[in-house]
């Protein structure tokens, strides 16, 4: 066992209440995980000993994000949402910020096949997940069938909600390739459109479904 580990084990034996991870390691984050890994090898049988295997509190971390089948390495603060990291740190501005409270749908992305609000997800918790944004829909210059349908049927006006609408549409069609009108409405319920393009959004999604 290395020096770091020894020190920590001693602290553990003290039983003076809380385990204190070294301040330097705590602040750096990266170092702390090394400490945690060492400590985790100690068998845990009861709550006090479980304390020994506590994860460290992170204020920031360098994480790996899988977005549109590409791996990105990005330094994030723990309070940054996936939405702001995509837009500000990764130049993927196709996903929009409209309310930032999970109340409108403009920031809808797909995570492991489900439609989620990127504004309500912490980036730091997104490692190991497959994230799909609007930028990942097209295949080079070729539009995705959903994008083609929205273009043909005019399912967009100002375009700000459109990325989110198409992601929810894709989440629907991936699971239910022949949706009814009611299915489409239900799947897009969490995507508000202030311009009121709903009739043509519905037409676009049903058209994409019929052509698949």
């Amino acid at each position, binding site marked *: 066992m290395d020096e770091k580990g020894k020190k920590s084990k001693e602290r553990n034996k003290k039983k003076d209440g809380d385990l204190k991870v070294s301040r330097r390691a705590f602040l750096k984050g990266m170092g702390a995980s090394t400490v945690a890994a060492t400590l985790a090898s100690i068998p845990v049988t009861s709550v006090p000993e479980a304390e020994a295997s506590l994860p460290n509190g992170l204020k920031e971390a360098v994480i790996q994000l899988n977005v549109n089948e590409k791996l990105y390495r990005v330094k994030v603060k723990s309070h940054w949402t996936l939405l702001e990291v995509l837009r500000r740190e990764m130049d993927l501005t196709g996903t929009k910020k409209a309310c930032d409270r999970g109340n409108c749908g403009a920031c809808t992305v797909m995570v492991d096949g489900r439609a989620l609000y990127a504004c309500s997800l912490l980036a730091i918790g997104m490692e190991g997940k497959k994230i799909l944004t609007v930028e990942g829909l097209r295949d080079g210059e070729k539009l995705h069938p959903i994008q083609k349908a929205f273009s043909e049927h005019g399912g967009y006006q100002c375009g700000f909600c459109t990325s989110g609408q198409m992601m929810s549409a894709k989440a629907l069609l991936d699971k239910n390739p022949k949706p009814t009108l009611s299915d489409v409405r239900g799947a897009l319920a969490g995507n508000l459109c202030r311009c009121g*393009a709903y009739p043509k959004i519905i037409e676009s999604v049903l058209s994409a479904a019929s052509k698949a």
Partner: protein
Amino acid sequence: MAKEFKVVGKKVERVDAFERLVGEAKFASDIFLPGMLYVKFLRSPHPHAKVVRIDAARAQALPGVKAIITAADVPKYQIHGRATAPSVPMPVLATTARYVGDEILAVAAVDEETAEQALELITVEYEVLPFLLDAEEAAKPDVVKIYPEGNIVQEPTDTLNRGNAEEGFSQADVILEGKYKTHMLQHATLEPRVTVISWNGKRLTIWDSHKGPFRLRTDMARALGLRINQVRVLTSFIGGDFGDKGQTERQHVVCGFIAMKTKRPVKLEFTREENFLGTHHRYPTTWYMKYGAKKDGTLTTIHIKLYADIGAYYHQDFAYNSLEVPKGVYRCPNVRLEGYNVFTNKPEAGQMRCVGHPAAMFPQEVHMDRLAEKLGMDPLAFRLKNYARKEDGDQDRKVPFASVGLEECARKGADRIGWEARWKKPGSNPGPVKRGLGVAFQSCRHGLIMPPMSAIIKLDPDGSVELMSGLNDSGGWQKTTMAMFAAEELGVPYEAVQVTTGDTDATTDTGGPGASRGTASVGLAVIAAARDAKLQLLDAAADQLKKKREELEIRDGQIFINGENKSVPYREILSRAPSPIIGRGSGKAPQNVAMHTFGAHFAEVAVDTRTGKVEILRLVAAHDVGKAINRLGCENQIEGGAIMGIGYGMLERQYIDSQTGICVNPNMIDFKIPSILDVPIVEPIIVESDDPYGPFGAKGVGEPPYGVPAPAIANAIYNAVGVRFDEIPINIRSIIDRLDKGRA
């Protein structure tokens, strides 16, 4: 005018479809510049208070804070207010807060969190003053003065005396009075207000979500002491406008000032909460209406008193704007109107889709329905009898309407919903869920021709076309419609036209897409530019073909030589022209005529009397658009406007707590805009009256559909359950309260 069009009237995909749909379109909120500072406003927590002292020492000391700006620092520039006394100016930053949310100071920091933290470290000492939240209260004498000159602004245009109201009432067989109220709401554009400004020592570059880039440019130059050509405004993609983003606001001047002072780019993006406070609002109104009619259904008199609650700051004469509706929709010889613009300590009134008309359409169309009932007439027949015809026109300017398609809208809409067969007496079906039909008419001057109007067309050597248009595409497909005009007039395929908008360096001022003027006004300029280009093409062709200009004709993208059986494509002439061909166009508003658009909506509702829940089963929206240039774009405006109008009538209201003056629902969960589950698939009916002045006969359609659903639905609910509404939004609470009252 049954002309065969090649491009106009067809369904096309947008010129900018690709970048919008693949997520590459950069909206102003998508702009992130190196070294950028984030600006945040500190907003008053009091509805009426003097700023006594600002202590920003702790914020100043916070690492990452680069500037803290108060009223004392910024240019003396009037953001809003009046040109003549009383000027009631809105300064760049407030020293007296007049509503909860009023901007007191601004902080610029290296990131948003630091800016937010800085705000928390600033202490402002206020002298709290009494406040007023109700316009009729504020209009009384001896109440708190929100401005030293008082709380009422009444312009000469806010009163009207047409004919003689007393005589008119004496001629009436039936007189009906009513009091109606509408409330405050907001555009809730999905992209909030956002400004990015950068100063390089010589020029100021502004990225903004804005539909009036040239106005912004001029105002910013004046505010910051620059020449107009030192300012460049970029507004390519706009995430919704609906009237909120057309003027120069505090955010612009403050950011410009900070950018020049710190020599760093700055960004100010409103949070959603701020976007409900520090922006423009549809103003609350209180109407006192008294209408008189003869027993054969002829309207004799309209008498109205209107309070327009304009909130904390003065933008324009809103009372006049709302009064245009009772003045103009129906033919009436005696009309007396009194309107008041009244200040209250609430977020300020501004333009929102169709401005003051929806607030007037709801009460008038309900009042007309009630009058029809009192007369024993079918409400549709009553309206058809009284609407102002072409020859009636503007009854005060005494000029005719250019084109009128209202009757066709009404008949087609009535057919579609089955009005004749299905409109029965109120509450006629059994069971707890009652169905009903309702109708409402629209007639207003949104969709008109108004300067400034300009366009530039460049013809490239290969025959492709570049259109430089200062008209922004705020979601109404304006960019595409202009391309269609150019293509049609030039006789080239739609795909051959490329459009540049959103850059004041590369386009000319043609006004913004407000007042639904874009299609008609800018269309004329684009056609004029195309014609100018064609004339130059003819000249070049005459030179090259060694013919006289009169011997040549341009048709369908080719130059024909009279008498000879051959034609020459543009590119042949263009590739050999010594200098590029640049077409220039402008336009003028027609004189001595009134341009109105018209519409009729028919709503079918189902009302569950157990729960007060209303389902809108169908909404048929018929509109006279002159000529539908861009079919998908046109349908989108009718459907979208109607859907937004359903929100206006049924869901949306900003509630202000009367104890504190604080808005309790500045967010998207408690301010309820319609979701896809709340609306029917609107059935648009396009009526084409072929306006003689509009480009290819077109008028406009962006705003007209907005104000019609609310009264159509209110009238349908009456038809279903026999309760009348004098207030919107009509929601579960108002339905249950009135059903209860009716039962009691």
